[in-house]
Protein backbone atom coordinates (compact mmCIF):
# COMPACT_ATOMS: atom_id res chain seq x y z
CA UNK A 1 0.00 0.00 0.00
CA UNK A 2 2.77 2.33 1.00
CA UNK A 3 4.63 1.53 -2.18
CA UNK A 4 1.56 2.35 -4.25
CA UNK A 5 1.25 5.71 -2.46
CA UNK A 6 4.89 6.46 -3.09
CA UNK A 7 4.62 5.60 -6.79
CA UNK A 8 1.58 7.86 -7.02
CA UNK A 9 3.47 10.70 -5.31
CA UNK A 10 6.52 10.33 -7.53
CA UNK A 11 4.49 10.30 -10.74
CA UNK A 12 2.19 13.20 -9.82
CA UNK A 13 5.01 15.41 -8.49
CA UNK A 14 7.11 14.65 -11.58
CA UNK A 15 4.21 15.59 -13.83
CA UNK A 16 3.81 18.80 -11.82
CA UNK A 17 7.50 19.61 -12.21
CA UNK A 18 7.15 19.05 -15.95
CA UNK A 19 4.39 21.64 -16.06
CA UNK A 20 6.64 24.11 -14.27
CA UNK A 21 9.22 23.41 -16.98
CA UNK A 22 6.60 24.06 -19.64
CA UNK A 23 5.62 27.32 -17.94
CA UNK A 24 9.20 28.54 -17.94
CA UNK A 25 9.66 27.56 -21.60
CA UNK A 26 6.53 29.55 -22.39
CA UNK A 27 7.92 32.52 -20.47
CA UNK A 28 11.10 32.26 -22.52
CA UNK A 29 9.58 31.71 -25.93
CA UNK A 30 6.27 33.56 -26.14
CA UNK A 31 6.42 36.83 -28.04
CA UNK A 32 4.39 39.32 -25.97
CA UNK A 33 3.28 40.08 -22.42
CA UNK A 34 -0.25 38.72 -22.67
CA UNK A 35 0.79 35.30 -23.98
CA UNK A 36 3.58 35.11 -21.40
CA UNK A 37 1.05 35.90 -18.68
CA UNK A 38 -1.10 33.10 -20.02
CA UNK A 39 1.80 30.62 -19.92
CA UNK A 40 2.79 31.68 -16.43
CA UNK A 41 -0.59 31.43 -14.73
CA UNK A 42 -2.33 28.55 -16.43
CA UNK A 43 0.56 26.16 -16.63
CA UNK A 44 2.12 26.92 -13.26
CA UNK A 45 -1.22 26.57 -11.49
CA UNK A 46 -1.69 23.17 -13.06
CA UNK A 47 1.83 22.27 -11.96
CA UNK A 48 1.08 23.32 -8.41
CA UNK A 49 -2.17 21.36 -8.53
CA UNK A 50 -0.34 18.21 -9.53
CA UNK A 51 2.30 18.74 -6.82
CA UNK A 52 -0.47 19.13 -4.22
CA UNK A 53 -2.21 16.03 -5.56
CA UNK A 54 1.03 14.10 -5.31
CA UNK A 55 1.68 15.24 -1.75
CA UNK A 56 -1.82 14.30 -0.52
CA UNK A 57 -0.89 10.66 0.29
CA UNK A 58 2.13 11.92 2.27
CA UNK A 59 0.01 14.25 4.43
CA UNK A 60 -0.65 12.97 7.94
CA UNK A 61 -4.33 13.23 8.63
CA UNK A 62 -7.39 14.62 6.90
CA UNK A 63 -6.81 18.14 8.24
CA UNK A 64 -3.37 18.50 6.66
CA UNK A 65 -4.69 17.16 3.37
CA UNK A 66 -7.55 19.66 3.44
CA UNK A 67 -5.08 22.45 4.16
CA UNK A 68 -3.00 21.48 1.15
CA UNK A 69 -6.06 21.54 -1.09
CA UNK A 70 -7.25 24.87 0.28
CA UNK A 71 -3.83 26.44 -0.33
CA UNK A 72 -4.07 25.32 -3.93
CA UNK A 73 -7.58 26.76 -4.19
CA UNK A 74 -6.35 30.06 -2.72
CA UNK A 75 -3.47 30.28 -5.19
CA UNK A 76 -5.82 29.34 -8.02
CA UNK A 77 -8.44 31.98 -7.19
CA UNK A 78 -6.10 34.83 -6.32
CA UNK A 79 -3.88 33.96 -9.29
CA UNK A 80 -6.81 34.19 -11.69
CA UNK A 81 -7.83 37.60 -10.37
CA UNK A 82 -4.27 38.98 -10.26
CA UNK A 83 -3.74 37.86 -13.85
CA UNK A 84 -6.85 39.78 -14.81
CA UNK A 85 -5.44 42.88 -13.07
CA UNK A 86 -2.06 42.60 -14.81
CA UNK A 87 -3.76 42.03 -18.14
CA UNK A 88 -5.75 45.20 -17.48
CA UNK A 89 -2.49 47.05 -16.90
CA UNK A 90 -1.13 45.65 -20.18
CA UNK A 91 -4.19 46.89 -22.05
CA UNK A 92 -3.94 50.31 -20.44
CA UNK A 93 -0.26 50.81 -21.04
CA UNK A 94 0.37 48.83 -24.17
CA UNK A 95 2.63 45.78 -24.33
CA UNK A 96 5.81 47.81 -23.94
CA UNK A 97 4.71 50.18 -21.14
Amino acid at each position, binding site marked *: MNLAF*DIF*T*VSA*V*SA*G*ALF*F*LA*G*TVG*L*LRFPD*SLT*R*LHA*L*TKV*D*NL*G*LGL*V*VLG*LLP*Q*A*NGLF*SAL*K*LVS*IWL*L*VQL*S*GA*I*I*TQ*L*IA*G*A*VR*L*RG*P*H*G
Partner: protein
Amino acid sequence: MTSFLFGAAGFVLAMAALGLVVILRRPAEVDHMMAAQLLGTAGVAILLLLAAATETPPIVDVALLLALFAAFAAVAFVRSAPDRESEVSKATSDG
Protein backbone atom coordinates in the same frame (compact mmCIF):
# COMPACT_ATOMS: atom_id res chain seq x y z
CA MET B 1 11.45 9.50 -0.98
CA THR B 2 13.09 12.39 0.86
CA SER B 3 15.73 12.90 -1.79
CA PHE B 4 13.14 12.70 -4.56
CA LEU B 5 11.10 15.46 -2.90
CA PHE B 6 14.23 17.56 -2.40
CA GLY B 7 15.15 17.02 -6.02
CA ALA B 8 11.68 18.07 -7.16
CA ALA B 9 11.90 21.19 -4.96
CA GLY B 10 15.29 21.97 -6.46
CA PHE B 11 13.94 21.50 -9.98
CA VAL B 12 11.00 23.84 -9.37
CA LEU B 13 13.43 26.34 -7.80
CA ALA B 14 15.62 26.18 -10.89
CA MET B 15 12.58 26.77 -13.12
CA ALA B 16 11.47 29.69 -10.96
CA ALA B 17 15.00 31.14 -11.05
CA LEU B 18 15.11 30.91 -14.83
CA GLY B 19 11.67 32.48 -15.07
CA LEU B 20 12.63 35.28 -12.68
CA VAL B 21 15.77 36.09 -14.63
CA VAL B 22 13.75 36.27 -17.84
CA ILE B 23 11.02 38.39 -16.27
CA LEU B 24 13.30 40.83 -14.47
CA ARG B 25 15.51 41.36 -17.50
CA ARG B 26 12.70 42.43 -19.80
CA PRO B 27 12.28 46.17 -20.18
CA ALA B 28 8.47 46.34 -19.86
CA GLU B 29 7.12 47.07 -16.39
CA VAL B 30 4.13 44.81 -16.96
CA ASP B 31 6.50 41.89 -17.30
CA HIS B 32 8.02 42.72 -13.93
CA MET B 33 4.59 42.53 -12.31
CA MET B 34 4.46 38.82 -13.11
CA ALA B 35 7.35 38.13 -10.72
CA ALA B 36 5.12 37.97 -7.63
CA GLN B 37 2.73 35.73 -9.53
CA LEU B 38 5.57 33.38 -10.46
CA LEU B 39 6.78 33.11 -6.88
CA GLY B 40 3.20 32.77 -5.69
CA THR B 41 2.89 29.44 -7.49
CA ALA B 42 6.47 28.15 -7.67
CA GLY B 43 7.35 29.30 -4.13
CA VAL B 44 4.28 27.58 -2.72
CA ALA B 45 5.17 24.39 -4.60
CA ILE B 46 8.77 24.53 -3.29
CA LEU B 47 7.62 25.07 0.30
CA LEU B 48 5.05 22.27 0.15
CA LEU B 49 7.69 19.91 -1.23
CA LEU B 50 10.12 20.96 1.51
CA ALA B 51 7.43 20.45 4.16
CA ALA B 52 6.95 16.88 2.96
CA ALA B 53 10.68 16.24 2.49
CA THR B 54 11.71 17.44 5.96
CA GLU B 55 8.47 16.23 7.60
CA THR B 56 7.89 19.64 9.18
CA PRO B 57 4.15 20.38 8.81
CA PRO B 58 4.43 24.05 9.99
CA ILE B 59 6.21 24.85 6.71
CA VAL B 60 2.79 24.45 5.08
CA ASP B 61 1.75 27.58 6.98
CA VAL B 62 4.65 29.47 5.41
CA ALA B 63 3.34 28.37 2.01
CA LEU B 64 -0.11 29.68 2.97
CA LEU B 65 1.34 33.08 3.93
CA LEU B 66 3.47 33.19 0.81
CA ALA B 67 0.36 32.64 -1.33
CA LEU B 68 -1.53 35.37 0.52
CA PHE B 69 1.25 37.96 0.39
CA ALA B 70 2.22 37.21 -3.20
CA ALA B 71 -1.33 38.20 -4.14
CA PHE B 72 -1.08 41.30 -1.94
CA ALA B 73 2.25 42.30 -3.49
CA ALA B 74 0.84 41.82 -6.98
CA VAL B 75 -1.99 44.26 -6.14
CA ALA B 76 0.64 46.74 -4.94
CA PHE B 77 2.58 46.30 -8.20
CA VAL B 78 -0.43 47.05 -10.35
CA ARG B 79 -1.53 49.95 -8.14
CA SER B 80 1.83 51.70 -8.22
CA ALA B 81 2.10 51.61 -12.00
CA PRO B 82 -0.92 53.60 -13.16
CA ASP B 83 -1.54 54.96 -16.63
CA ARG B 84 0.74 57.85 -17.34
CA GLU B 85 -1.64 60.61 -18.42
CA SER B 86 -3.51 60.79 -15.12
CA GLU B 87 -0.23 60.81 -13.22
CA VAL B 88 1.17 63.68 -15.27
CA SER B 89 -1.98 65.75 -14.89
CA LYS B 90 -1.98 65.07 -11.16
CA ALA B 91 1.67 66.04 -10.83
CA THR B 92 1.11 69.33 -12.59
CA SER B 93 -2.17 70.22 -10.93
CA ASP B 94 -1.22 69.95 -7.26
CA GLY B 95 1.52 72.02 -5.78
